């Protein structure tokens, strides 16, 4: 390994891509450097469920040939050519296991690639492997993985957030240059905040869900978790756009492509998320970031956000209802693990699903089945749909005179493993700031904005109207520069010893 390779994991993906193009490092070198780090540290972190060691090196060599050829003929290689990245394990990868961190899908190898995976491959990136998550993306701490929990690189006694905990931890720990995650109610933003990386949940319909194992179809979006705002923007650019395989995708309006500047942006700070229920250091971080934006010419003021009290109930009804239907196909008939020892088809279904699903998945399936059942459908699912329309209206009203909203991603920084597992409601309340954007289908981004007294990252959430990703990137870039978090990396040696102590 060259001396340079040791520092590779401190570069963001665009920085590494540029270094690869300048031939300061080769893709096999960079890939080996990442694989070595995974070898050294992932035993502690637990971010990976599957490492494509040999395949990744082979892909890296192919990427290097592309880079060499481009250097020779002066052409431009694909944007992330040779950059090692990783994917949440609910994205279908042809020939590589895709298990959603569930016993039920252990060993399942899809016969096709998700559209997002194809687009990442087309960008020249090298896929290192598949990342840990809460089972079927249901959870806020990554403790619902049926395989193993993920530990927070900043403090291994703490959770990385969920459900894309593996994605956030891998990027924060320098185990992948960027990662893809999925966000249904905060599953990109919350772990990004807890792990101190940038995470974007795009506008619903921006990124194809084809090949994303569905949790809640009307809420799921794939997005990047990255070391820099620029990376997140570049990856989002690769992923976005209509896909003929996903009827809910749309072409982004031309106006969405225009670059935005912070000067003149009307930024609202929702009062609902600045209450005493929020950790004081997180509130302070929001106010500090507001000042940074104001210093660049934004008009910042507190505002009210209607219907916030309906977010969590509406979210858990809608997402569970859809999940109960989406997860019904995991019956052991065609793929995944079928239970042994049954006497009837119904028995086979029950045993397979009883043994294959974890407690949280079962809880959501039961909840979702209940809220769709005859006699309860209107009171729960019907009411939740009405609440959702009301929530959308609330955002519309706020965005009539705001360009974006700034607030916390979660009420506090990363909590300890086991701290909330006994109380599902406390766990669900981790999503209190994030599910609104999911229900409204609007973009929201988590950007690191400093650390609390315990050295844990604080993430702030920027929320905009549909297709306003560029506005979010502009404001996030301002916060990123002012916060200066990019130069700070977790001490993985310390994390390992903390994990040892915590066990």
């Amino acid at each position, binding site marked *: 390994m060259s001396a340079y390779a040791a520092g590779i994991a401190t570069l963001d993906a665009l920085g590494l891509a540029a270094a690869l193009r300048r031939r300061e490092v080769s893709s096999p070198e960079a890939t080996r450097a990442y694989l070595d780090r995974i070898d050294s540290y992932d035993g502690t972190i637990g971010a990976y469920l599957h490492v494509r060691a040999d395949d990744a090196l082979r892909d890296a060599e192919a990427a290097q040939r592309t880079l060499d050829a481009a250097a020779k003929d002066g052409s431009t290689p694909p944007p992330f050519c040779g950059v090692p990245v990783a994917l949440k394990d*609910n*994205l*279908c990868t042809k020939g590589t296991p*895709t298990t*959603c961190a569930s016993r039920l*899908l252990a060993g*399942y190898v*899809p*016969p*096709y690639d*998700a559209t997002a995976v194809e687009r990442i491959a087309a960008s020249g990136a090298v896929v290192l492997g598949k990342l840990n998550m809460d089972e079927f993306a249901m959870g806020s701490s990554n403790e619902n993985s049926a395989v193993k929990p993920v530990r927070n690189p900043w403090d291994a006694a703490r959770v990385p957030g969920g459900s894309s905990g593996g994605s956030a931890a891998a990027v924060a720990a320098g185990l992948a240059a960027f990662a893809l995650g999925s966000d249904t109610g905060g599953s990109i933003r919350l772990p990004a905040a807890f792990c101190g990386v940038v995470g974007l949940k795009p506008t619903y319909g921006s990124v194809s*869900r*084809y*090949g*994303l*194992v*569905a949790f*809640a*179809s*009307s809420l799921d979006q794939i997005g990047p978790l990255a070391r820099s705002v620029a990376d997140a923007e570049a990856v989002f650019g690769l992923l976005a756009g209509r896909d*003929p*395989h*996903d*009827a*809910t995708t749309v072409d982004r309006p031309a106006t969405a492509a225009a670059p935005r500047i912070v000067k003149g942006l009307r930024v609202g700070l929702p009062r609902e998320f600045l209450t005493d229920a929020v950790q004081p250091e997180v509130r302070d971080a929001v106010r500090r970031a507001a000042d940074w934006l104001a210093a660049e010419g934004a008009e910042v003021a507190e505002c009210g956000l209607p219907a916030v009290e309906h977010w969590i109930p509406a979210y858990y009804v809608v997402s569970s*209802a*859809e999940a*109960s*239907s989406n997860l*019904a*196909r*995991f*019956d052991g*008939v*065609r*793929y995944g693990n079928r239970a042994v020892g049954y006497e009837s*088809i*119904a028995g086979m*279904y029950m045993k397979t699903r009883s043994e294959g699903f974890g407690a949280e998945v079962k809880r959501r399936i039961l909840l979702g*089945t209940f809220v*769709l*059942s*005859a006699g309860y*459908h209107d009171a729960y*699912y019907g009411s939740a749909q009405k609440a959702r329309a009301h929530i959308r209206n609330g955002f519309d009203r706020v965005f009539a005179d705001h360009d974006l909203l700034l607030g916390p991603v979660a009420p506090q920084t990363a909590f300890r493993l086991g701290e909330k597992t006994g109380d599902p409601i406390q766990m669900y309340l981790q999503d209190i700031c994030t599910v609104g954007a999911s229900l409204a289908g609007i973009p929201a981004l988590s950007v690191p904005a400093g650390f609390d007294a315990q050295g844990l990252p604080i993430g702030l959430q920027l929320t905009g109207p549909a297709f306003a990703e560029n506005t979010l990137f502009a404001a996030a870039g301002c916060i990123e520069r002012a916060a200066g978090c990019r130069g700070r990396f977790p001490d993985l040696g310390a994390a390992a010893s903390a994990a040892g102590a915590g066990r």
Partner: protein
Amino acid sequence: MAYEIVCGLEIHAELSTATKIWCGCANEFGGEPNTRCCPVCTGLPGALPVLNRRVVAFAVKAGLAMHCTIAPRSVMARKNYFYPDMPKAYQISQYEAPLCLGGHVDIETSAGPRRIRLTRIHIEEDAGKLLHDAYGTGTLVDLNRCGVPLIEIVSEPDLRGAEEAKAYMEAVREILEACAVSDVKMQEGSMRADVNVSIRPVGATEYGTRTEMKNLNSFRAVHRAVEAEAKRQEALLAAGKKVAQETRQWDDNRGESRGMRGKEDAQDYRYFPDPDLVPILVSESDVARIRAELPELPAERRARYIGTLGIAEADAALLTRSRAEAELFEAVLAQGVGVRAAVTWVVVELFARLNAAGRSVADLPFGGAALGRLAALVEAGKVNAGSARRILGSMMEQGGEPAALAESMGLLVVADEGGIAAAVAAALAGSPAAVADYRSGSAKSFGFLMGQAMKAAGGRADPKLLQAALREALDGPAEGKA
């Protein structure tokens, strides 16, 4: 007590679009198990459906042909249930907002015409097939049929008995066939019906308790199932018992049904709008364009045959039983054959032979145009009717062009003077007694001699020319004729 049968049908018809409803897989019957499918139609994790717009166009066409109102906005919904033939564990169908509303189908019954109202027509996907005990004692799953587009045509409970139910199903089949939106092949399961049956005292206005029988796949099965179920219900009521609301399985081999599940076991399908699909929008201009493409429907065609062409009702009914039969008849007409001759050739000659042989027009090795050319040869006096029947017999076996067949089979009419004269001479020479009888005043001997002359000509002499020549030979030249 006299009872009236009340029944309603839910007819499922597979649409004959080139590809399936959610993916690009070919929409074809059969194939090696599990070869005509992909991640989408087999419901693999992460796969998503995308609506084939041709399915909407086909369903709208069927809806317009049955006088439905087309919804400008309709919604696909998930019908959730576990069964191995449905790999997503939900069927994507329509529930609260179907594509076609209302409408009607007119049927002919022995008691005269009846109008059967429709509730709705909606689109949905077909399921796979289970093969029980085909391999050991296990059940195998074939998913080739998954994602084949279906329409479900739901009637109001307007049918009053087995005959009407059967006539209604036949009428729907004719309409779907005329619109070319479905293969309507009952034996391949591309059209099948669920039947709801109840009975009530004649004159009553309340409906009785209904039972449902699913997946009847022939007109005969529908007829028998309704009849048997009505009888069963009547026997129950006569014995002072009640009809239970239930789903029953019709066994067409045994001609009886048995209970499957009662009302209390009815599935809760937990319908909700499918979030993977967007609402289906059909504009007024879409509807206008599809309406303009509508073909002449069987009832309209029948009315035209009777009213404009002057064809008898019974013949018109036979000619419009199917699109293939009507098109064959119109191809005969297109050869310039008169209507009466065309009806005779198609109904009396062709259909009778097909019936006797248990064949259908689809099996014929020739088309209506060839039959028309044969009829035209007869009308032009180039082939005698008897010869033409022999030519048709040959065509039915191996096809061929009528004129060429007439030539090769030696059946072209003999009209030349030499041939006619030779035949007359042979008849006179062979039957001197009949000639003597004729000359002594026996007019009927002329008929006999005519027969002999035709026989001598091998049956293919132009009859008018032969008759004139025979008269001339017996009576001397006709005065004033030249």
